[in-house]
C-alpha cells in the first residue's frame, strides 16, 4: 500500500525545475481551521498555505499555482470528511436515521452548488489560462467554507 502510494505520488507529482513536488503545510492548514472562530463563514487564512507553496520552485507558473491550490484543497477536503463523519456519529446518538439522511441530502446539495458555482467562475474566464486558477481557487475557498460550516453544525447539538 505504501509502495503503491509512493509510486502514485511520483507519477502525479508535477515536474518542477528541480524535480520536487509542490507541497503545502498540512499543519498550517489545520491550524488555520482551528483558529477560525465559531460561525465565521469564510476562514480568512484559507489559501495562505497555497500562497507559500507558490513561492517554491515551479510554483509560480499557472500549472504550479493550480497544483498548490489543489494540494491545499485536498487537506480541507479531508477535514470536511472528518467533520461530516463526526456529525453523522453525533446524529446517530441524538437524531437517528432521519437526521442522517437530511445531512446527507444537504451535503449532496452543497456538492451540486459548489460544482455549479465553480463551473460558472471557470467559464467567466474561458478565454484565458487564468480560468484554471479561478476554478481551483473556487474549490479551495468553498471546501474550506463547508469544512468549517460542518464543524459548527455539529456544535449546535441541542
Amino acid at each position: 500500500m505504501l509502495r503503491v502510494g509512493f509510486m502514485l505520488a511520483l507519477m502525479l507529482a508535477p515536474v518542477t525545475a528541480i524535480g520536487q513536488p509542490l507541497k503545502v503545510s498540512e499543519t498550517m492548514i489545520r491550524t488555520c481551521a482551528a483558529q477560525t472562530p465559531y460561525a465565521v463563514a469564510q476562514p480568512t487564512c484559507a489559501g495562505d498555505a497555497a500562497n507559500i507553496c507558490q513561492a517554491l520552485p515551479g510554483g509560480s507558473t499557472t500549472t504550479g499555482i493550480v497544483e498548490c491550490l489543489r494540494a491545499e484543497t485536498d487537506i480541507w477536503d479531508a477535514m470536511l470528511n472528518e467533520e461530516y463523519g463526526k456529525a453523522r456519529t453525533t446524529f446517530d446518538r441524538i437524531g437517528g436515521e432521519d437526521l442522517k439522511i437530511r445531512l446527507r441530502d444537504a451535503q449532496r446539495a452543497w456538492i451540486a452548488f459548489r460544482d455549479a458555482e465553480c463551473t460558472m467562475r471557470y467559464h467567466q474566464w474561458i478565454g484565458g489560462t487564468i480560468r484554471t486558477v479561478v476554478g481551483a481557487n473556487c474549490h479551495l475557498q468553498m471546501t474550506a467554507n463547508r469544512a468549517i460550516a460542518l464543524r459548527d453544525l455539529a456544535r449546535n447539538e441541542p
Partner: protein
Amino acid sequence: MMRIWIITSVATMVLLPQLAVAQDMPYDPAATQSCLAEMADTDMENTNVCVGRSAEQCADASVGGFSTRSMTACMSAEYGLFDEMLNVEYAKVRGLAADLDKQVNGTSFDDVSMGDRLVQMQRAWIAYRDATCAYERRQFDGGTIGELVYIDCLTTLTADQAFRLQNSVLGL
C-alpha cells in the same frame, strides 16, 4: 430573477405568518446597514459579522425582552433585509452576465451562456439552502428553538450568498 424573487418571497410568507401582524416589533435595519457600510470600506471579506446586528437590538427592545419568540420575529425581519440584498446583487450579476454573453457571442467554448450558468448556480444554491436549513431545523426537532434556528440559517446563508455575489461580480 423574478422566479427566484417569487420563490424566496413565498418562503417568507409561508414561514412567517405572524410577521404581518407582529405588533411593536422594534426592528430597525440601521445597525446592520451601518455595519455593512463600515465593513465595505475596511474589511470586505468579513461582512458576515454584521448579520443579525439589527435583529439582536430588536429582540432586546421587544416587549418582554430577549426571548426565542422575539428573536425569531426580529430575525425574520433581518432575513427580509438580506433577501432583498440578494435579489439586488443577483440582478447586477445577471446584467453583467448578459453583457459578457454579448461579448463572447460565437466564441464560447460551448453552448451554455453565462446567464444560464448563473441561473443554474442560483438554483443549486436554493436547493442547498433549503436542504441545509431543513436539516438544521430537524436537528432541533421543530420546536420554537427549531423555528429560530431555521430563520437564522436562512438569514446566514442568504447573506453569505449576497456577499459572494457582491464580492465576486464576475471577478476572482
